[in-house]
C-alpha cells in the first residue's frame, strides 16, 4: 500500500518536473551542502579517507541521508565534472543521463553523460556504507529488513551500532524482534560500552546463558598476554617460572624482548663452530674429534674466550637471568574489573557446559549402544538362544543394507523406499538365513568350532560377492527428509533424528523379541527345543523346523538392523565385518541367552566407548582398542557375562 502511494507521488512529481528546465538542480539543500563539504573525499573514493564522510552522512540526522547512502552503494550517484554537485543518475538512451535530485529524489531532467562522472565505490567502501546503513535499517518499516540488519550486526558488530540499537528498541513494535534487539543490545554493551559498571552489569545480567554468541563476546575480554618486567605492574597475575611456565619458554620471551642474549642451542653452536673452522682445526682442536656435545662445548668456550663468538649461555646463566625478572599475565581485552567479571561469568558457563556435555556424551553413548544392540539382537537369537556361532551375521547386516540401497534405486521417494526396504530386507535375509541353516549349519549343530569355520567361509564368500556386484566404493542409503536435522535442546546438547530413530527401532526390536519369545507358540517351542531337544521332539515339536525358523528370524532381524545402520553409516561390503566382533562382544559381555543381558552389554560397550573417546578425542581407533582390551579383562572376572543364566537353562 505504502509502496503504491509512493509510486503515485513519484509519478505526480515526474509529471510536474517535466515542465521544469533541466538546470533546476538545487545546490543549497542541507544534504547537498553536507556532500559538498566532503566533496573531494567522496569523488576520490578511497577506502582510507572515506570514513569521515560516511560517518557524517550517517550521523547527520537528515531525512535524505539513508537514500543517499543506499544509492551511493548501488553506484547510482554521479557528480557534475564542472561544479562537483552530486546527483542520482540513471543511464538513458543515446549517451544521455536522467538526473534526480539528491534531496527528495525528484527527476530534474536529462543531460549528456560526458559531463557527469559516476561514483563507483569498491567493495570495501560498499561494506562501510552497508554498516553505516544498518542503523537506518533498524528502524525500517519492513520487519524483514530490520531482521536482516540485526543479523548483520550480530555477524559484525561495531561500536557505533550500540547507540543506534538502543534508540531503536523503544520504537520496535514486533515483540520477537524487540527481545532480540534487547539481547543484542546487552551483548554490544558488554563489548563496547564506555562505563565499566555498565559492562559488568550487562555481564551479570546474562548469568545462566550458555549461548555461543555470549561466549564469543566474553572470550576476548579475558584474553591475557604473557609479559615480563622488572617488577609486577598493578592488576597483573604473576606466573611462577617452573610451574605455569617452563624456564625455556620464559627465557625465549626474554630473548624476544631483547632483555637477554639468546641461548646457545646446538644448531647455533654448530653453525658458530663451522664458521670458525681453520683448516682441519678449530681453536687448535682437531675437527675430527668434535663428535660429542661436550667436546663441542669446550671448543666453543675457547672461542668465546678469544671473543670470536658470543659467550656461551649456560643453564646457570639462564637461571640467574630469570630470577631478575617477574613474569605475569595481564588482561589485554578489557579493564581489570570487567575482565574479572567476564572471567567469573565464563567459569560459571563452563561449569554448566560441562554438565550439558556430560548429558550430551551420555546421549551419544546411548545412541551408539542402540546401534550395537541392533547389530547384536539377531546374534542374541542365533548365538544366544540357539548356540550357533554365525560368523556371517555381519554379512546379513550388509545384505540388509544393500537391499535398502537397491530399493532406493527403484523407488525414488525416500520415505516410501525405507518403508519398503524394511520388510524386504527382512525377507531377503530371512531367506538367506534359512538357506544357510538348511545347507550348512544343521549338519554341524554339535560341532561349534566347525560351525564357526564354515560360517567364516560363507562370510568370506558373501563379502566378496557383494564386492563383485556393488563394487568397493561406499553406496549411500539416504534417510527420508523428516529424519534430517537434529533435536536441539541447548547449544551443547543436540541429537540427530536418525539416532533417535535407531534408538526407537532398538526398543521396538526389544519388544518384538520379548513378545515372540514369551508370548507366541513359536517362542515357546524355541525355548523348549533349545533347552532339551529330545524332550521337545517327543512332545511333538519338530526341532528341525524350529531351528530353521529361529535361525531365519535372527537373520531377518540382522537384515533390518542393516537398513538402520546403513542410514547412519555408509553401505560397504565390509560394513558387516566392522560390527561382527563388537556384536559378539556385546552378547558375550551381556551374558549368553538373555536378551536383557544383551541390552546391558550394548549399553556398557556403547557408553564406555564414547567415554574413552571423550578422554582421548579424535582417536576412535584407540577407543576401540581399549574397549576390546577392557572386554577381554571383563570376561576374566565374569566369564558368563553380566547376567549369567543359572540352573538347568545354563547347562543346555
Amino acid at each position, binding site marked *: 500500500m505504502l509502496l503504491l502511494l509512493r509510486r503515485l507521488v513519484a509519478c505526480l512529481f515526474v509529471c510536474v518536473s517535466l515542465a521544469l528546465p533541466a538546470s533546476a538542480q538545487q545546490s543549497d539543500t542541507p544534504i547537498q551542502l553536507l556532500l559538498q563539504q566532503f566533496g573531494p573525499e567522496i569523488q576520490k573514493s578511497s577506502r582510507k579517507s572515506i570514513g569521515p564522510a560516511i560517518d557524517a552522512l550517517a550521523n547527520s540526522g537528515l531525512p535524505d541521508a539513508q537514500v543517499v547512502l543506499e544509492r551511493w552503494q548501488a553506484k547510482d550517484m554521479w557528480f557534475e565534472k564542472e561544479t562537483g554537485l552530486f546527483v542520482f543518475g540513471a543511464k538513458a538512451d543515446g549517451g544521455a543521463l536522467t538526473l534526480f535530485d539528491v534531496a527528495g529524489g525528484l527527476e530534474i531532467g536529462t543531460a549528456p553523460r560526458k559531463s557527469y562522472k559516476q561514483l563507483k565505490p569498491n567493495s570495501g567502501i560498499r561494506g562501510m556504507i552497508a554498516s553505516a546503513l544498518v542503523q537506518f535499517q533498524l528502524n525500517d518499516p519492513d520487519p524483514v529488513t530490520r531482521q536482516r540488519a540485526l543479523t548483520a550486526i550480530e555477524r559484525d558488530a561495531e561500536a557505533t551500532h550500540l547507540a543506534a540499537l538502543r534508540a531503536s528498541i523503544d520504537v520496535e513494535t514486533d515483540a520477537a524482534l524487540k527481545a532480540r534487539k534487547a539481547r543484542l543490545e546487552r551483548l554490544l554493551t558488554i563489548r563496547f560500552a564506555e562505563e565499566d559498571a555498565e559492562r559488568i552489569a550487562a555481564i551479570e545480567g546474562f548469568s545462566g546463558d550458555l549461548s555461543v554468541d555470549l561466549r564469543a563476546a566474553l572470550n576476548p575480554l579475558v584474553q591475557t598476554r604473557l609479559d615480563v618486567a622488572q617488577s609486577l605492574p598493578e592488576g597483573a597475575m604473576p606466573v611462577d617460572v617452573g610451574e605455569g611456565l617452563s624456564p625455556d619458554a620464559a627465557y625465549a620471551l626474554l630473548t624476544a624482548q631483547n632483555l637477554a642474549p639468546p641461548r646457545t642451542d646446538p644448531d647455533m653452536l654448530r653453525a658458530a663452530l663451522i664458521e670458525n673452522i681453520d683448516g682441519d682445526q678449530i681453536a687448535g682442536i682437531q675437527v675430527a674429534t668434535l663428535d660429542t656435545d661436550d667436546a663441542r662445548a669446550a671448543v666453543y668456550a675457547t672461542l668465546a674466550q678469544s671473543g670470536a663468538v658470543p659467550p656461551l649461555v649456560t643453564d646457570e646463566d639462564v637461571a640467574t637471568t630469570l630470577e631478575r625478572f617477574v613474569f605475569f599475565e595481564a588482561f589485554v581485552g578489557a579493564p581489570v574489573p570487567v575482565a574479572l567479571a567476564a572471567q567469573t561469568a565464563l567459569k560459571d558457563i563452563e561449569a554448566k557446559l560441562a554438565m550439558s556435555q556430560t548429558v550430551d556424551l551420555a546421549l551419544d553413548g546411548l545412541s551408539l549402544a542402540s546401534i550395537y544392540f541392533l547389530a547384536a539382537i539377531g546374534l542374541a537369537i542365533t548365538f544366544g538362544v540357539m548356540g550357533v*556361532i554365525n560368523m556371517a551375521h555381519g554379512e546379513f547386516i550388509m545384505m540388509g543394507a544393500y537391499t535398502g540401497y537397491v530399493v532406493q534405486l527403484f523407488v525414488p521417494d525416500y520415505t516410501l523406499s525405507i518403508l519398503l526396504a524394511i520388510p524386504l530386507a527382512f525377507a531377503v535375509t530371512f531367506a538367506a538365513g534359512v538357506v544357510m541353516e538348511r545347507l550348512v549349519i544343521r549338519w*554341524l549343530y554339535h560341532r561349534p568350532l566347525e560351525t564357526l569355520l564354515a560360517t567364516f567361509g560363507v562370510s568370506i564368500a558373501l563379502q566378496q560377492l557383494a564386492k*563383485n556386484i556393488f563394487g568397493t566404493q561406499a553406496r549411500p542409503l539416504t534417510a527420508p527428509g523428516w529424519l534430517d536435522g537434529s533435536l536441539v535442546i541447548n547449544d551443547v546438547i543436540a541429537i540427530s533424528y536418525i539416532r533417535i530413530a535407531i534408538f526407537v527401532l532398538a526398543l521396538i526390536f526389544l519388544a518384538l523379541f520379548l513378545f515372540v519369545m514369551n508370548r507366541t507358540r513359536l517362542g515357546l517351542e524355541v525355548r523348549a527345543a533349545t533347552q532339551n531337544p529330545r524332550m521337545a521332539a517327543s512332545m511333538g515339536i519338530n526341532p528341525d523346523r524350529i531351528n530353521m525358523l529361529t535361525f531365519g528370524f535372527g537373520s531377518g532381524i540382522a537384515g533390518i538392523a542393516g537398513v538402520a545402520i546403513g542410514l547412519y553409516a555408509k553401505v560397504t561390503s565390509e560394513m558387516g565385518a566392522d560390527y561382527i566382533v563388537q556384536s559378539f*562382544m556385546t552378547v558375550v559381555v551381556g551374558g549368553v541367552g538373555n536378551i536383557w543381558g544383551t541390552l546391558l552389554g550394548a549399553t556398557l560397550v556403547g557408553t564406555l566407548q564414547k567415554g574413552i573417546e571423550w578422554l582421548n578425542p579424535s582417536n576412535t581407533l584407540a577407543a576401540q*582398542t581399549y574397549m576390546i582390551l577392557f572386554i577381554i579383562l571383563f570376561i576374566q*572376572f565374569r566369564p558368563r557375562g553380566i547376567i549369567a543364566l543359572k540352573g538347568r537353562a545354563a547347562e543346555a
Partner: protein
Amino acid sequence: MTDLALTPPRRAFVLRHPSAVIFIGILALFTIGVTVLAEGFGIGVISTSFVKTLGKTLCLCLVALAMDLVWGYCGILSLGHMAFFGIGGYAIGMWLMYARTEIIVQTSLAAAPLPPTPQEISDGIAAQIFGVVGASEFPPIWAFAHSLPLQLAAVVLVPGLLALVFGWLAFRSRVTGVYLSILTQAMTLALSLYLFQNDSGLRGNNGLSGLQNLPGQGDVPQSTISILFFWASALALGLGYLMCAWVVSGKFGSVIRAIRDDEARVRFLGYSVEAYKLFIFTITAVIAGIAGALYYPQAGIINPAEIAPIASIYLAVWVAIGGRGRLYGAVIGAAFVSLLSTWFTGGQAPDINLGVYTVQWVDWWTILLGLSFVGVTLFAPRGIGGLFDLVAARRMPNRHGQDLGPDAGALREKEADR
C-alpha cells in the same frame, strides 16, 4: 632294574615318526632343487621373485604348523596366530629399518663440516623414519631397535610373553571353545587397530617398508639374498617340523590330544590342563613369531592390515583344507592354498568366458575359497591330508569302534556317536 623289563623299549625317533623323515627328505630335495634352478647360485631358471614367493610360502607353512599344533592337536581354535606372526615381522623390521636408515644418515652427515654427535645421528634417523607420520622422535618402543640381538630376542619374547599373559588370563577363567576363538579374534582386532594409529610408534598404516634390503649388504644382489632367506626358511620349517613332531609324540602328545577330545576328563585324571594348554599356546606363538621374522624381510613391507583378524582366519582355512591333526596336512594346506591364491589373484589364471559373463579369477577366487572351505568343513573334515589315509588304510587292520585319534579332527566322542 626290573622296571626296564616292564616298560616297552622306546623305539628310535625316526621309527616313531616316519612322516618326519619323509618330510625332511622332501624338504631337502626341494631346497636343493630350487637352489640349483634359482639365479643366486644355480642356473637361473626360476626368477628371484618366485624364489621369494617360495621362501614366503615356507614361512607360511611354518606358521600353519604352529596353528595345527594349537588347533589340530590341542583343540584351541586360535584366531590370533597371524598377530604373533606379524609381531615377529615388526620386531625384525624395526631393526632392518633402523640399521639401514642409520647407514644412510651416517653417509649424508659425513659430508657435513663437523663430525656428527650420536644425538645428531639418532635425530636424523628418527626424522627419516617417522617423517611420514609427522613425528621426529623415537618412541620408547624403538629403544632396542639399534641392536640386532635384542630385536631377535624380541622376535621370540614379545609373541611368547603376549601369548603367555593372554593365555594365562583366558585359560584360568576356563574360557574355551568358540568363546576363546572370539576372544583371540578380539585380541587380534585390538592389536591391528592399535597399530593403525599414527601415534602407536610403528608408523601407523604406513607400516615398515624397505625390509628386503639388508643393512650394509647393499652390494649383495637380491638374487643371493633371496636364496639365503629361502634356505633359512627351509631350515626353520624343518626344525619346526621336527620339534612339533617331538612335542606331539610320547606322553605329552597324548595328553594334549586328550585335552582336545575331552578336557574335563583329563582334568579329573589329575593333569593340569591349563599348564599344558598354556605351554602349547605360548610355544606356537613363538614359532609364529619366528616365521613372521623370516617372512617379512622377503615380503619387504609390513603394515597393520597384515595383522587384521581375516589373516588369522585364512590361516585356519589353510590348516582345515590341508587336514588338521596331522603335521604334514598343515604344511600341504598352507603351501597348496597360498600358492594357488597367488596364482589366482596374480591375474595369471585364465578367465572363464560364460558367454553372458566372464569369470575373472581376481574377483571370484575369494568366493571359490570361501565356498570350498565350507565344503571341506562339511564333507571332508580330514582335508587333503585325508587322501593319505586311503593309502594307509589299505594296510591297517579294521579295528572297529569309534576312531577318535588325531585323524578324526576335533570330533568328541559324544559327537561322533550321533
